[in-house]
């Protein structure tokens, strides 16, 4: 789980071009939208694509995007719960 969170933080920085932030600076439970990382609605879509491509987990409209994408911890929980077995 810790490795997953660390990987997620790296992916966030790379994928969303967060050049002003280091992965280690992102807190596990820190809200990533709004103030913290300056993410917007397009970033949310990028994250949905990222989760699908890297972890095979789909987020459809029916699911609660804002809750899953709330923080690194909530994303890690979602991936662990929904990831297809290799």
């Amino acid at each position: 789980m810790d490795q997953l969170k660390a990987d997620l933080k790296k992916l966030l920085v790379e994928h969303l071009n967060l050049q002003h932030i280091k992965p280690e600076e992102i807190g596990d439970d820190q809200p990533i939208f709004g103030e913290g990382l300056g993410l917007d609605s397009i970033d949310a879509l990028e994250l949905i694509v990222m989760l699908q491509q890297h972890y095979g987990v789909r987020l459809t409209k029916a699911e609660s995007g804002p809750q899953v994408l709330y923080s690194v911890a909530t994303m890690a929980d979602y991936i662990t719960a929904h990831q297809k077995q290799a």
Partner: protein
Amino acid sequence: MKGELKILRSCLIRDNAIIVDGEMVYARPGSFADFATAAFTARNAAYPKFYKMDNLAKLGLLAAEYLLADQPALLSGSPEKVGLVVGNTNASADTDLRYAAMARQDLASPALFVYTLPNIVVGEICIRHQLKGENTFFVMDNYDIELQTAYTNTLFQNQLVEQCLVGWLEFLGSEYCGFLCLVGPSEQADLPNYTTEKVKHFFTK
């Protein structure tokens, strides 16, 4: 706003150099990406949206930043009356090709798709500087300065704008050219008049 239409300031970006009113103010060899990031953060370290933009949008935002950011008094028109008239030849082809390449590998990037339209760079400039006036994007074989100047003059004559950003923003592969001028009425006699010849002069420096 009084006075003749003048080129209040010009900014030309090419070959990893930024030239304002004919004087080089920043240069950094290397990739465009590194040059643009360094140049932008040198002027504005507090706008992280810059890093997510595509090449064309970075080019436009950089030109606007060097044109406007260090002299806030320059942009004196009311926000709804500052217009933008910009164009290029290749539209958003640089990003179109990147997006198509990613899509080929079944990697869809919504953030990249957003930039597959040439006028997004205009939108980004408007968001950064809160400009709400008339704005357009022409796709032309060559930079038809005469057409652009005539068009912009019409906007002023019909009192649709109090100031206007005009220019040419081109990016394809390794070739790019970013050019923006702030045009508006001024009683300062030493400023160049807004004419096709003067715009050409700053464009070809």
